């Protein structure tokens, strides 16, 4: 009987062996394929065809001129020295009006005839300067008196541009800086800052920077909003590259440089910059080949090993 009792034990042992082994072994080869990635080389080799296919542009490092600007909103204003208010000296009835709104006048031009109430004699109003009538309150037959009735004559051959300078820019604005004035995003004219207000406006908390503009063709109209780009710094730098060349890798700013082995990221230190270009203080030398456009592809290739994980697939 002893022999026979051993048999079920033997059988169960074999079966358990078969099944448990199988389940333990299952994992072993499950993910053998997913191996190659992981280690990233910092030098990458790209054939010319590949560069073309992916639109990667390689250029030579050179120097150039960099202009730094700040953009400020502003308004066209009449130069107060070029504005005249012509008012009646004596209260009287308007007998005749010779000029209308918007008409150009010369100095000495007759504007109106008024009959004085006191003396009942008539006298004439003359323009005191060359300019355009920008405002008037004179109607035939009415009684004209001082503050209410007047001709405003403005000389618009020169206008002021008043730029509002926000607090944080004030330190960067100084007399003589060149400013390009644009109307509706199109550059119209350039001028220089001739005045910066010493105090801030109590209401808007801005300082005013003024540029005097020639306006012989009258294209700037007082009251118009414009944008002024103030050149706050301009200089020539020995290493100047387009901003499209900069890539951020692990929190560091790098440029991909091509050397005899291939492409390699080089950490760079950035100096002055504007919208398009950036000065490189260290890390890059004139004459080196670098990726000016399409560096993202190289960056992605470098990081390839790390973005496999996570969601999906």
């Amino acid at each position, binding site marked *: 009987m002893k022999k026979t009792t051993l048999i079920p034990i033997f059988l169960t042992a074999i079966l358990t062996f078969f099944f448990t082994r*199988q389940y333990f072994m299952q994992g072993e080869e499950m*993910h053998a394929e997913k191996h190659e990635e992981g280690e990233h080389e910092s030098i990458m080799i790209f054939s010319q065809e590949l560069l073309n296919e992916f*639109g990667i542009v390689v250029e030579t490092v050179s120097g150039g001129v960099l202009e730094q600007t700040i953009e400020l909103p502003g308004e066209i204003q009449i130069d107060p020295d070029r504005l005249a208010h012509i008012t009646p000296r004596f209260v009287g009835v308007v007998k005749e009006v010779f000029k209308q709104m918007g008409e150009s006048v010369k100095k000495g031009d007759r504007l109106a005839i008024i009959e004085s109430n006191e003396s009942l004699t008539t006298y004439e109003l003359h323009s005191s300067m060359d300019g355009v009538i920008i405002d008037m309150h004179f109607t035939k037959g009415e009684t004209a008196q001082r503050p209410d009735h007047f001709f405003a004559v403005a000389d618009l051959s020169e206008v002021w541009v008043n730029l509002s300078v926000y607090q944080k820019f004030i330190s960067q604005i100084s007399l003589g800086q060149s400013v390009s004035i644009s109307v509706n995003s199109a550059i119209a004219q350039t001028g220089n800052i001739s005045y910066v207000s010493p105090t801030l406006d109590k209401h808007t908390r801005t300082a005013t920077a003024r540029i005097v503009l020639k306006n012989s063709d009258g294209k700037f109209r007082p009251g118009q*909003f414009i944008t002024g780009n103030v050149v706050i710094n301009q200089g020539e730098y020995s290493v100047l590259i387009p901003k499209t060349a900069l890539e951020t890798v692990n929190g560091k700013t790098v440029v991909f440089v091509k050397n005899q082995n291939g492409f390699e990221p080089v950490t760079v230190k950035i100096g002055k910059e504007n919208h398009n270009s950036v000065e490189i203080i260290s890390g890059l030398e004139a004459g080196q080949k670098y990726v000016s456009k399409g560096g993202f592809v190289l960056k992605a290739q470098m990081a390839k090993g790390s973005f496999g994980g996570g969601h999906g697939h």
Partner: protein
Amino acid sequence: MDTDIKMKKLIQFILKNRLLALAGSLLVLGAGYSSYKQLPIDAFPDVSPNLVQVFTTTEGLAPEEVEKYVTYPIEVAMNGLPNIEKIRSLSNFGLSVVNIYFEDETDIYFARQMVNERIQQAREKIPNGFGEPVMGPISTGMGLILFYYLDDETGKYSLEELRTIQDWLVKFHLQTVPGVTEVLGIGGYEKQYHVIVDPFALLRFDITIQDIIEKIKTNNLNVGAQFIEKNSEEFIVRSVGLASEIEDVKNIILKSESGIPIFLNQVADVEIGGAIRRGIQTHNGMREVVSGMVVKLFGSNSSTVIGQVETKMEEINGMLPDGIKIIPYYEQKTLVEACVKTVSDALLQGIILVMIILFLFMGSFRPSIVVAASIPFSVLFAMIGMNLFGISANLMSLGGLAIAIGMMVDGSIVIIENIDRVLKEKSNDESKIQLISKAFLEVIQPVTFAIIIIIIVFLPLFTLQGVEGKTFRPLAYTIAIAMFGSLIYAMILSPVLSSFILKDSTNNGEKKDLWILRIMNRIYEPVITYFVENRKMAVWLAGSLIVVGMAIFPKLGSEFTPKLNEGTIVVRLSMAPSISLNESKNTTLIVERRLIKIPGITGVVTRIGRGEIGAHTDPVNNAEIYVLLKPKDEWGNNSQADMEMLIREELENVPGVLVNITQPIAMSVDELLEGIRAELAVKLFGDDLEILKEKADEIADVIRKIPGADDVQVDQITGTPQLLITINRNAIARYGINISDVQEVIRASVGGETAGQIFEGIRRFDILVRLAPNFRNTSDAIANILIQSPDGVDVPLSELAHIEELVGPRQITRENNQRFITVQCNVTGRDIGSFVEEGQGAIDNSIILPAGYLVKWGGQFRLQQEANKRLAVVIPITLIVIFLLLFYNFNSLKNSLLILLNIPLALVGGVVGLWLTGQNLSVPASVGFIALFGIALGNGMVLLTYMNQLVKDGVSIKTASITGALLRLRPVLLTALTTALGLLPLLYASGTGSEVQRPLATVVVGGLITSTILTLLVIPALYKWFSDKKN
């Protein structure tokens, strides 16, 4: 014995009511056929988890905000739902996905209803304008049944126009097809009315962007004002003021100064444009296309739905403008058809092979017919069961039938063979009916038990869980039901049909045995005599077989489940997480151009990112390329694997792109399971993303040093650049501006804000107010955006806020309300248990976690361990039950043990079979082993019963061994052969899905060979030792 009497009564009753039995069987056949017609047809069992997805699109929110404002309230609301398994969430840029996993048995509609109730609660907690949570489609990972794109032959339609056609015509009509739950559009541009604001004009007219939004909203309305009565009639009063075209919007008056109105078009350009998009669709490396995905309703019949969708598409094609056509580029139909073809071919061939064997061995036509009729009966019986239990017809369930083909006839073979034999040896005084009942009674008990044992051995399969469970349970079900059907056939119909069809050979009773049997008997007789006389040789034979098996076993490779070829290749590209949609598109187009150069590929269609939510949640750095292939026979000698190789080679040097080749269904199912594909995962739970990342890197370093660690990978949770605008509270206080004032301007100016809709008939399109591009698309431009203070001062944003560029989270994943990061790895060359132990120790020793941080080990090894544990209990129980049945049958411990001896020998055959064909141990192979248990035992039982019978009749044990074996050679060989040949087509099938069943078939065929040898040689030889009678 008690049962004997019952059986006698049963057979007498059956034979008395023969016509009733026939009618009953016809009823079963009819019901089976109608069930077959109703069965839903799928490609394979749906292994998607039981889950409800809650999606929330949030316009332009970064992952942190999505998590805080949207994901968290939803998660909290879902806590405590009944039957909930876990909650996992993903907060991505602009999208929150909360997956609520329910236990497998939970009714999906019940679950959705519960979730919906809770969504209402969550809604209240999500701030206004941060998105509305919606549930995903009522579908599963296999629900994406058809993808199509719109082909514009004329080339004159813009992407907006095409998308409008898709959304308002194609989608509209396709959604009406029953069984379609959703049609998701992607690609092109969703049409919008864009109000592109000029900031200088705002300044000029002293208007803010909020004023514009407000004005548009208040000038675009229809109202009703009840009715008036006029001459006993009611007139409904309505006032219409809805903008219906671009001019209406342009002429909205913003304000009027001294009687001069300022129109919207003085401060903004109004034009038709495309909505901001997070996904596009490209075609052949040439252009963008507009496409759609048809999602099938949960539980509906794939094949009918697809058929109806196709008819509908024909109809829609007729309605589309000239030159535009719907072109499907992926259809699950192809796969369903291929799978069904594979198994139905195997079924048919199996049936034919079994028939041939029957005719060869039975020698005459009539008995063969009676036996063969068992197949349609059992198959149709199984159909009734499938219909009843809601099992769809698919690769696995039909595969179960294909596997069982040979086994279905086993019972009736033994019975009919015996009846046939008895009838031929007929002595004149007994009637045909009496003879049949006598022959029937001789064998019915072992037959019944053999079949019951086969059914019982499949019990462990029912305990399989998860993906394996869902995959293989249908197979186990159909086999069990079909076997039950065959039992009914054997018990009731086989004697009835015998009585009708079999002839009692009165005159030529001395008819000679069949030539094939004569030859075999001639070979078998000396062999069996030798073994019975030299029992030790039999022991040696069995022992050496077992040794061979155990030697080979460790050499087998292993895999989870063999890869199922779906016949469609998807190339999945992962690009850098920070990539822009445009760059992503450029890269994809390059990849597409490379792919279409490969011979055999006719076209490629790619989805980048995600379209309408519901199916995909990919960010824009993911692209899925559907590779359209020529028909398989035009590939030359290439297999799918070869095609994949070609693709891999072609894409090898694409920089910055990770290429992953997969298949549509596998991919979407994986995405829903979303567990880690690696077998081991260390999940670190905690709050601070930085600390999580840092500690996870430390853990990865520790794990890498443990011997056996492979593919150690830390989840990428960061890597998305952000432009962070931090508002300076002191600065805004000076101007008297509120934070929200600033933020609203930022949102409207940079991201754009919807200010209502324009109705064109029933089509509605958003009006989006946004700054002109060059005033918002660089950080400098954003810094210059002006914000108006309450007293009318315009202040640039840079005065009020600090703007910086930094790298932020890519996505935030949470499980059960806690953030986590995963470190995954595989283990090679050692067992996982010890690896986990060592890893846990190492982490405890070398990593100091801050309070509130927690490490959990998980991954597929858990599932495997659970499966092991379950099987370790269930398999012994099954064996005990089988043993009890055997014991009940033989009433002898020794006899039962002799039968059980079959099992190890059968296993050896299975192992050798796998080894010879170069296959791995896998789940289907182990299912094969389980099946073997049952099959192997059946043969031995029939033989042993007969030998016992002879001994009882007074024959000596030795003679009984030899004569018993010789007499039972025919049924034993026949049953083994039918089972094996029934499986043969599965062994050689090369169609879609055959790869899953091949290991199973291999194991059973291999095992049958060795166990038949045992039954025929070893059992008679050892019979003496195991017999209860002593001579």
